[in-house]
């Protein structure tokens, strides 16, 4: 009975957070709590895997909690068990990393109680089977993560992050609440099975779709609802940022799939257009934000937005194909999306662990202050390099496989009868390609500036390799990324049941194809074999090395850098992150970010240095959020006058209320 077991584990997590509160500032607390959470998430992970692979029937259970006349319903079906795997794989890695990384924490008593609660919240969302339990867990998840964001509450920007975060979170929750209100109807059929049974009117369904996109999209970081994400994710301790960015956004994806694909009933084709457009926009905007950002963790957060966009494109394709009854294509698209969910979870956790290691070693999040870390922290550098290659969707790593699948799905778009989709889908494909290329640029930038070159500051020069646990966690994740990249067939087959559960069918089994390559539709159409590509690259590289080293010279001399004849020991002459992004900023920035460069040249003979200052505007914030905040402030100011009236004025308010009501009564009927 996996469901009961999982619920027990979750209860254990909740108990843990209570324990954490009680043992306050003990030094033993950190390893104990993280160790226990690690154990629990491993248990949950295995439970999810078992249920996913042995293809057993969905199992539900109802606790006498929550809404009394419905009870708190929980259910594990392939979809939720897949996300159970996602959540708890990330959670296990983060907990393991936390055992070591948590030692650097200066205020553990502000982190430890919330951490297990956060894990519990995410697991509960995935298992919930009625609207109330779902939303309760959803908001509880946000609340716990808010606590984690506020852990380092002394920096004012963290406080701001927490504020924006929780506000956006409850905004999203309200959107979902309204959606469920529509789905459940006036007399409150909140149980998911009831909702499944009832099919809302087309208009209502469309409304629900939009509300879900707003609600879950704001949690996933869909443009233009992403503003909180780059603030909040970096504010938390790094292994928690990994959870928020790598896992919590996936929980939001789960919500979208659960509601739109499972609860909402048959889709309409134009829904696909909405989702596709949002996804494409998020992908490009996200990566551009990332390119112009210098804060290591914020870059990663922005890149999360990009990948979320990528996933949403997959979902949009699935919706479109499904609405037009192309089962195979829909299944392919959804599989691609879920595969990318898995990949991004691995990669983003890995990268955030890496940023945490760098932060711990140098106390710096700003790339401009780093450099040359590959010498000081080789293991971290290796792992992060793997992460960078992976998230740039380059073979033979895992993200390429999912990207490739998505493109294959896009290439099936000509079947679609609607012109809107016919024309939109390839355009979105172009956007995806663009975002992938830009992502590569972005991660070349990160790794090149932070890890390569020469140390730009003293902290970077004296950085020390991070602790054992973090290293193991990072390298383990990197290994998983490579594995998933060269053996994508197995992952796809593992995803199969989840897709089956939602779509009614799944992709042909890949792991039995000859040479372990993947063939989404037909051999003649397209195929990819990560394993062979990997082996070929490895072979030819080693061949080249061996050949040259045996037949020709293998001697190397060390010498000062040549640099076209201008050797300068000063590391300040290195290319900076800003200058690295400059060409791309010139191409894309001026339009989307109103990027503006200002050069102050000193007069001839003046010894003052010339200065180049770049100003970027977050268009979304300027256009959407600033006016909103302004409006609320304005209204508050105007209404505030009512606090300062005289009694006579208050009396006249009462008087007018009375007279108006009487007038209404006199005029009525």
């Amino acid at each position, binding site marked *: 009975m996996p469901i009961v077991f999982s619920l027990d584990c979750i209860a254990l997590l909740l108990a843990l957070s209570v324990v954490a509160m009680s043992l306050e500032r003990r030094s033993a607390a950190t390893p104990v709590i993280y160790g226990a959470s690690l154990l629990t998430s491993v248990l949950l992970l295995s439970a999810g895997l078992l249920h996913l692979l042995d293809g057993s029937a969905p199992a539900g259970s109802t606790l006498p909690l929550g809404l009394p006349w419905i009870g708190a319903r929980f259910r594990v079906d392939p979809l939720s068990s897949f996300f159970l795997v996602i959540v708890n794989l990330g959670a296990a890695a983060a907990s393991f990393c936390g055992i070591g990384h948590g030692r650097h924490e200066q205020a553990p008593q502000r982190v430890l109680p919330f951490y297990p609660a956060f894990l519990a919240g995410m697991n509960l969302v995935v298992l919930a089977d009625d609207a109330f339990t779902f939303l309760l867990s959803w908001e509880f998840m946000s609340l716990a993560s808010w606590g984690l964001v506020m852990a380092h509450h002394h920096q004012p920007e963290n406080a701001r992050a927490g504020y924006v975060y929780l506000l956006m979170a409850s905004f999203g929750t309200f959107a979902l609440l309204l959606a469920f209100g529509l789905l459940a109807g006036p007399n409150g059929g909140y149980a998911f099975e009831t909702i499944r049974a009832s099919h809302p009117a087309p208009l209502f369904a469309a409304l629900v779709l939009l509300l879900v996109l707003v609600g879950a999209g704001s949690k996933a970081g869909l443009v233009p609802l992403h503003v909180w994400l780059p603030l909040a994710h970096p504010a938390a301790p790094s292994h928690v940022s990994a959870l928020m960015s790598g896992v919590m956004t996936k929980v939001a994806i789960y919500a979208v799939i659960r509601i739109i694909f499972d609860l909402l009933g048959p889709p309409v084709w134009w829904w696909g257009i909405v989702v596709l457009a949002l996804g494409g926009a998020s992908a490009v905007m996200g990566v551009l934000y990332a390119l112009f950002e210098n804060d290591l963790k914020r870059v990663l957060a922005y890149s999360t937005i990009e990948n979320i966009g990528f996933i949403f494109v997959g979902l949009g394709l699935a919706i479109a194909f499904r609405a037009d009854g192309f089962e195979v294509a829909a299944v392919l698209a959804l599989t691609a999306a879920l595969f990318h969910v898995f990949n991004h979870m691995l990669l983003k956790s890995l990268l955030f662990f890496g940023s945490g290691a760098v932060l711990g070693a140098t106390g710096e999040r700003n790339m401009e202050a780093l450099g040359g870390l590959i010498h000081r922290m080789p293991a971290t550098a290796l792992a992060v390099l793997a992460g960078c290659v992976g998230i740039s969707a380059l073979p033979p790593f895992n993200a390429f496989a999912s990207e490739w699948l998505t493109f294959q799905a896009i290439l099936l778009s000509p079947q679609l009868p609607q012109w809107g989709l016919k024309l939109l889908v390839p355009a979105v494909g172009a956007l995806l390609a663009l975002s992938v290329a830009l992502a590569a640029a972005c991660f070349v930038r990160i790794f090149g500036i932070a890890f390569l070159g020469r140390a730009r500051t003293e902290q970077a020069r004296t950085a020390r390799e991070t602790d054992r646990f973090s290293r193991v966690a990072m390298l383990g994740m990197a290994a998983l990324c490579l594995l998933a990249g060269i053996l994508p067939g197995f992952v796809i087959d593992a995803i199969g049941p989840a897709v089956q559960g939602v779509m009614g069918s799944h992709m042909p089994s890949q792991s039995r194809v000859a040479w372990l390559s993947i063939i989404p539709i037909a051999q003649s159409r397209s195929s990819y074999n990560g394993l062979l590509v990997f082996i070929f690259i490895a072979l030819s590289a080693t061949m080249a090395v061996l050949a040259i080293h045996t037949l020709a010279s293998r001697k190397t001399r060390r010498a000062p850098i040549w640099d076209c004849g201008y050797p300068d020991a000063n590391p300040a002459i290195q290319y900076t992150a800003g200058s690295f992004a400059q060409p791309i900023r010139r191409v894309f920035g001026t339009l989307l970010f109103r990027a503006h460069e200002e050069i102050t040249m000193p007069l001839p003979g003046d010894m003052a240095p010339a200065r180049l200052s770049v100003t970027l505007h977050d268009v979304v914030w300027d256009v959407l959020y600033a006016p909103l905040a302004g409006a609320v402030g304005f209204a508050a100011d105007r209404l505030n006058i009512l606090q*300062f009236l005289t009694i006579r004025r208050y*009396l*006249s308010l009462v*008087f007018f209320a009375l007279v108006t009501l009487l007038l209404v009564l006199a005029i009525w009927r």
Partner: protein
Amino acid sequence: MHGLAFDVAHLLAGSLVLVSFMMLYQDRLYALLNTYALHAVVLSLSVGWQAYINAAPHLYITASIALLFKAIIIPLALHRMIVRLGIHREIETVASIGPTMLAGIGLVGLSLAVMLRVTADADLVAREDIAFALSVVLLGLLIMVTRRNAVSQVVGFMSLENGLVLAATGAKGMPLVVEISVAFSVLIAFIVIGIFLFRIRERFDTVDVQALDRFRGERR
């Protein structure tokens, strides 16, 4: 009930409204107080009449309370206060008398309009009395709203309360009328004493309500 009784009741109730209008018209404190005394007298008369025609002896108590307490004690007390506190005698009103009167007429019209919807089978005295009572209440509130000076506001409140008593007595056989009128007298006493209190504490140099809420909770 035979016509005469009805007419007298009607007359008294109507004259109460009239007196309210007179109060609305006053712009001097003493005059206002005197008119209020008149108001109370008329009220006690009408209550007495109700007691007589409905043969409800307990209403006589109410009537006498109205006569003694409202028509004599309170006005005298307020008189003394005005002298003692040296409140200047003009009442600064919000709007000039003319519009205020118009508003008052509008209110009476409103109350009639509202009450005319009452199905006729409710007995007529009740119906009329309620209409008048409602207009007295509204006029009293209007006085409170349009006067800037605490004493006149208190007077307005008291006339409002007279309207209530009128309604209460108009309702045939309504229990607790006496208790209610007593309770209200207590309330009014409280208000008057309240004004005294502020004076005695020497916190406020005038009892103008605006001075009272000089602080207005949160200082700006």
